[in-house]
């Protein structure tokens, strides 16, 4: 194919209107969509990373690991795996979108990735530290996002409300009151001094019964270390319904 042939072919296509330039607005629209997409991904990433910090703050999942082998399952159950996965995916999408910007080729992808990661993590951490989650969770449309449980079949967290002969009565952040029996063989790395209002995490087994008053949680381990920081004063309504009160009556 000679240069002349290609030149003729292309110019005749232009002349006949078969080959047209894309209008300027097409590129403006593309840029606007790219910008909005990048912003949306950044916001989603930041919000999800904020949820990760929130979940780690409230549950302190690493604390279960101090309670021996039995603490592994609660650790797996309370660690925010899905959120981390979503944050990771949004990070990668964000990177791909940023690479479409003209400035991106002058920087190494690894630097862009680190900058993006730092932005998402920092904004997530600051959002959580500012206490936005405690406000968000009261919002009608955001409640499903915060519908986390405070107890599983073999774990729970909460505050000690009352001491009993064989343990204590625990109130979960949601307001459920549960009788906890702590046997002699239970692992208690932080001692057995159960002060009122102290926040604890308990692993063990729920003993169900036909009679609601006979329901109790048999503790295999009680931890009182870091994590489990929720803001009590702002947890209203659903959170303080004390709907589990009848369990200990």
């Amino acid at each position, binding site marked *: 194919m000679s*240069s002349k042939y*290609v030149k*003729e072919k*292309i*110019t005749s296509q*232009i002349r006949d209107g078969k080959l047209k*330039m*894309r209008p*300027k607005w097409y*590129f403006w629209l593309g840029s606007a969509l790219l910008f909005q997409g990048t912003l949306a991904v950044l916001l989603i990433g930041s919000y999800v990373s904020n949820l990760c910090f929130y979940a780690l703050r409230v549950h302190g999942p690493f604390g279960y690991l101090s309670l021996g082998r039995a603490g592994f399952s609660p650790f797996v159950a309370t660690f925010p795996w899905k959120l981390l996965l979503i944050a990771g995916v949004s990070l990668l999408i964000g990177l791909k979108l940023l690479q479409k910007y003209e400035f991106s080729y002058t920087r190494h992808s690894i630097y862009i990735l680190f900058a993006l990661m730092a932005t998402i993590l920092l904004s997530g951490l600051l959002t959580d530290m500012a206490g936005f989650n405690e406000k968000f969770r009261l919002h009608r449309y955001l409640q499903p996002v915060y519908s986390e449980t405070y107890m599983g079949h073999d774990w729970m967290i909460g505050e000690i409300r009352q001491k009993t002969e064989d343990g204590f009565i625990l109130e979960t952040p949601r307001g459920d009151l549960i009788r906890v029996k702590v046997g002699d063989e239970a692992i208690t790395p932080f001692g057995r001094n159960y002060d009122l209002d102290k926040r604890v995490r308990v692993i063990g087994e729920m003993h169900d019964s036909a009679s609601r008053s006979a329901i109790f949680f048999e503790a295999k381990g009680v931890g009182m270390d870091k994590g489990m920081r929720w803001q009590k004063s702002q947890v209203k309504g659903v959170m303080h319904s004390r709907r589990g009160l009848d369990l200990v009556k």
Partner: protein
Amino acid sequence: MIMVQVSDLSDETLVEKIINDDQELFGEVVKRYQDKLERYISRLGSSKEQSQDIVQDSLIKTFKNLKSFNPKYKFSSWIYRIAHNEAINLFKKESKYQKFSFSDWLGEVLPSNVNVEEEVSDKIDLEQLKKKIDKLDLKYKDVLILYYLEEKKYKEISRILKIPTSTVGIRLKRAKKQFKEICQANM
């Protein structure tokens, strides 16, 4: 009034004229770049026919997207990048990265009645040289071709390949090192 020949215009001014005055002036862009791009694409690793198709598609793409060209950058880098991306996309589709042989290309681009040995025997064995270049990793071959054969500057290579200028330097250095190793291994 001084009449300026179209062929005297800079690329960037020509593009401006195409957008604002006469779209058919794009023929001048074809004239300026068709052969250069074909040569570059062939060196990257495609047959003659394939290079021609790639370049034709690239030129059409260039025209369609002409209004997105930013005149503060060099037009030649932009058009090379479009052609480069077209070629890479096609190579990926056909997994041609590994299969391509520079010597095959040489056989295709040179007329059959030309004796390669005679043509190049005056100073270097061109075929041998190209075989050695063939052995380079594509990412090094890119840079080497653009720098030495297309005579592009670091900044232009950076824009064409969309890599930082510092990476161009590093790749060029490694390309030379790898090329030297290949040469030594063949001695």
